[in-house]
């Protein structure tokens, strides 16, 4: 409300100027802009989506149904009835009796098919990510300790690491001769054989996605209003009851957000599965990649559509839930954080802290050890001794690399510039879509699906689509309109990042008390101004979290960057890492550490700029 008042005050100042007519025109102009700002932003968002996502992607997906110029469903039918992809389900789709299929499904040697297996490992990875993400959210949202804010900022760091870095870290940590086995042996325990198993893949997926679950859940938990809990307690509810009735309903939509996003990501997983699991555990995306590489576009597109349908179904199922379960809030005075040192040695104070201590030990092995191994690899030479050679390589490449080679500094600079610009673009896009999708109207599901699609389409297909749709361009009336280079990269990154802004901001917005908006409107504020001055401030932690994710997505992006880059001058840090991979991984890991440090610092800066939710 204060924001609205502030705006009025400025308006009065304007009117006080001598040239009343000019001021009037200005005011009217501003009011005009404000009243159409929402529509304009929505149009811009749609335009960006069409140009940098829908049209490009469609040029590829259409190949599933148009083969040699004729429309056909044959490719689809072949994929759907192929037991290799759909396991026992394919038999059902090809017309066998459901009873027979059900019998084989219950038998121990049932076939899941590649699609079934992909969903299965994604489900396992989701469970693992939630299990590892929730305690972190609890720790970050409910306890006070030195470095808490920095730690919260750094949680997203794993999210941006290229798969080869994670593979290196994991082999060094969980491999036969890895740190974990060395520790186990030192403790007199038998070594574990973790690598090239489903477990290793699931843990790696949790490494990437538990931070996501933790970050969105922390943002929601920090928004829980303390007075609601106090009211419940004063009405006689015990701490458990107050948690179940008041805190949980506000936190667990966020947990589900994290879970749904994790499922979608791990469903489309690609390089890490082969690096840590091996080809026995190949997922759908592995085949999309191979088919595109072999130019078998029809089958690749059909598989990508299958992926898209499954991922979107999961997202939409979750969105239906989110729409139903929204709770009414009017902003929050956050719950006071507790100290990590128990105030009294009672069981109730000690138990959660002991649990957290156990969790920190596990997190140390799963998150910190692989990153530490990466850092160690960057300072280890071929002979096993410590060295700074790999960093010297980076400096040398910077100084003597040819113009057409990738050099570290431009890569750092580009990464930061693209990520900052993409975040600034993704935020208004995400907020507008969040506002539009929290209203209730017919066809909202369609808008939801359209808005979330960038999360659900295979990255390989998007890359190929960008090549066709943007780099090659479209022919309009004798002109070929094309886009590439920095601007196209920023738009493409914003399109991949904005769904995160939507997903973090939307639950909070839909939970806001409508009367706040209505009274502001009644006082004469435009819709855009209500969003800016009333609604966004109330869900600010979510906006900051969304910004951090949009930034992270841009920093970690690889496929569309290399497709749209016009030369070595538009390459980013992940591209530099890929370029520096050689027979020895030192130079690449050194660049990986640079990426780690640069993004870590950026996250801290973003969250500082965003302000701490707790205010003063």
């Amino acid at each position, binding site marked *: 409300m204060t924001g609205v008042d502030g705006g009025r005050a400025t308006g009065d100042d304007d009117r006080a100027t001598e040239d009343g007519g000019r001021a009037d025109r200005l005011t009217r102009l501003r009011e005009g802009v404000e009243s159409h700002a929402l529509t304009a932003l929505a149009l811009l968002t749609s335009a960006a989506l069409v140009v940098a996502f829908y049209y490009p992607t469609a040029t590829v997906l259409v190949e599933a149904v148009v083969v040699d110029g004729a429309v056909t469903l044959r490719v689809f039918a072949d994929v759907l009835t192929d037991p290799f992809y759909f396991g026992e389900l394919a038999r059902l789709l090809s017309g066998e009796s459901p009873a027979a299929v059900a019998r084989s499904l219950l038998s121990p040697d049932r076939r899941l098919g590649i699609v079934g*297996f992909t969903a299965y490992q994604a489900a396992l990875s989701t469970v693992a990510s939630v299990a590892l993400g929730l305690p972190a959210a609890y720790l970050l949202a409910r306890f006070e300790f030195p470095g808490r804010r920095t730690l919260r900022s750094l949680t997203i760091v794993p999210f941006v690491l290229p798969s080869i870095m994670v*593979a290196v870290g994991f082999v060094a940590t969980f491999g036969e001769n890895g740190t974990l086995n060395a520790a186990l042996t030192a403790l007199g325990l038998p070594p574990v054989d973790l690598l090239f198993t489903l477990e290793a893949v699931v843990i790696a997926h949790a490494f990437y996605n538990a931070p996501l679950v933790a970050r969105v859940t922390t943002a929601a938990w920090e928004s829980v*209003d303390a007075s609601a809990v106090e009211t419940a307690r004063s009405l006689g509810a015990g701490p458990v009851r107050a948690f179940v009735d008041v805190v949980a309903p506000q936190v667990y939509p966020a947990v589900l957000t994290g879970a749904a996003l994790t499922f979608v990501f791990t469903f489309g997983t690609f390089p890490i599965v082969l690096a840590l699991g091996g080809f026995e555990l190949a997922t759908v995306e592995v085949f999309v990649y191979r088919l595109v590489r072999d130019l078998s576009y029809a089958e690749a597109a059909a598989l990508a559509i299958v992926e898209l349908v499954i991922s979107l179904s999961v997202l939409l199922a979750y969105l239906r839930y989110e729409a139903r379960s929204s709770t009414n809030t009017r902003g929050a005075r956050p719950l006071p954080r507790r100290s990590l040192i128990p105030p009294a040695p009672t069981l109730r104070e000690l138990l959660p802290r002991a649990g957290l201590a156990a969790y920190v030990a596990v997190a140390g092995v799963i998150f910190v050890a692989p990153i530490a191994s990466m850092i160690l690899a960057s300072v280890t030479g*071929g002979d096993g001794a410590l060295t700074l050679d790999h960093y010297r390589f980076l400096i040398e490449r910077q100084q003597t690399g040819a113009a057409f080679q990738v050099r570290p500094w431009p890569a750092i600079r580009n990464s930061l510039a693209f990520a900052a610009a993409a975040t600034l673009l993704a935020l208004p896009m995400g907020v507008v879509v969040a506002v539009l999708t929290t209203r209730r109207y017919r066809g909202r599901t369609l808008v939801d699906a359209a808005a979330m699609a960038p999360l659900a389409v295979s990255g390989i297909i998007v890359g190929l689509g960008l090549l066709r749709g943007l780099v090659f361009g479209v022919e309009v009336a004798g002109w*070929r309109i094309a886009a590439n280079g920095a601007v196209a990269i920023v738009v493409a990154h914003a399109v991949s990042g904005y769904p995160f802004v939507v997903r973090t901001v939307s639950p909070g917005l839909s939970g806001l008390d409508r009367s706040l908006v209505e009274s502001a409107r009644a006082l004469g504020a435009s819709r855009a101004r209500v969003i800016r001055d009333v609604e966004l*401030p109330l869900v600010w932690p979510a906006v900051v979290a969304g910004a951090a994710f949009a930034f992270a997505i841009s920093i970690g992006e690889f496929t569309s960057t290399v497709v749209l880059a016009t030369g070595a001058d538009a390459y980013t840090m992940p591209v530099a890492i890929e370029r520096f991979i050689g027979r020895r991984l030192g130079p690449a890991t050194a660049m990986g550490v640079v990426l780690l440090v640069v993004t870590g610092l950026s996250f801290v800066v973003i969250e500082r700029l965003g302000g701490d939710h707790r205010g003063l």
Partner: protein
Amino acid sequence: MTTDKSETRRRRARPRTRRRFLTAAGAAGAAALAGCSAERVDDGGDGGTGAGSDGGNGTDGDGDGETPTLTVATYTNFIDAPSVSPGEWLKTEFESRYNAELEWATPENEVNYYVERAASGVGVDADLYVGLTTEDLVRVDEELDEDLFAEAGDIEGRDAVKEGLRFDPFDRAVPFDTGYISLVYDGTTMEAPETFEGLLDDEHAGALIAQNPGGSATGRAFLLHTINRFGDGGVASDGDGEAVEGGDGDLEYDYLDYWADLQANGVRVLGDWDEAYAAWSEGEAPMVVSYSTDQVFADMEGQDLEKHQIRFLNDQAYANPEGMAVFADADEPDLARQFMSFMLEPDVQGEIAQRNVAFPAIDGAELPSDYAELAKEPADPVTFTYDELQGAVDAWVEAWERQFAGN
């Protein structure tokens, strides 16, 4: 539930930041819209800046002035690798010997990028491609009705190319180097078997790391080698019952049988060569499918050569000759052919071999006398011809995938 006092105070202090930030976001959006290019379709020109085409200091094409520009497309490792790559030397040397400027283009999708360009009708914006394999040619020819590449024609020095390396039956691609895919093993912990069958021994259970034939060149070469050895069992026969016969002479036992046995013995098939090599370097397994030039790098980095032993199974290795070809609609076809002659000169051949860590395509390349000590060549290189791969390689890979993954 109203906002409490401290919250209000904080908000009063902040709206400016948010407002400024929303304005900035709007500006970024406007700039994004301004970032397109438009050009007349019939302009010919050089079709805009292609992905990965690196102009250096912006001297891009159009100038019909004195110095013509030759755009050479290739894969990224050819011009940019952490250890050595021939790109920079070749550019400097070519520009000093000829009145021309050389510009590298390294699109991410490599040859497929030009297939896409041709299929989309946007014109190929490069003069020649360096780094074609037999499989690339097969794929390109299957996909496009028109010719992507022109016949090599009259190229000085082409007669010197070794007979066994000439892989293009239509004389477009001219080989400029070759490499061999073999096993690399840690001789301090094991002695690698000498035959394919030896890999199935119990003592080598879980000892080999290979790569996905669908996504990695080394992985595919190793798969092709097993097909060459054991036959394809008629997998790609199109129902005419014709099968590729293996060198083992056993018609009942084909490459899929061999891979079933290999899988039972714990072979690891990872994604890319770099993931596989990294896992091998960490000691996850003592053997890895890699290049027969491994010791050249090991020596460069002062590593223990005993840990980098090469094994040619059955004294064989799969050969991957690399070729170069002029694009059919090159702007500078004559200059492109001059470049191809340049690439075949004995001193350049020696430099390419050393900087690309491969083997020269001609006899009499100028190489240090000790090069052969570290870069190993098999007694009996094997490879499939263009005709053998055509219409077969996709089916081979797919049959393997279906057996190996089979969830």
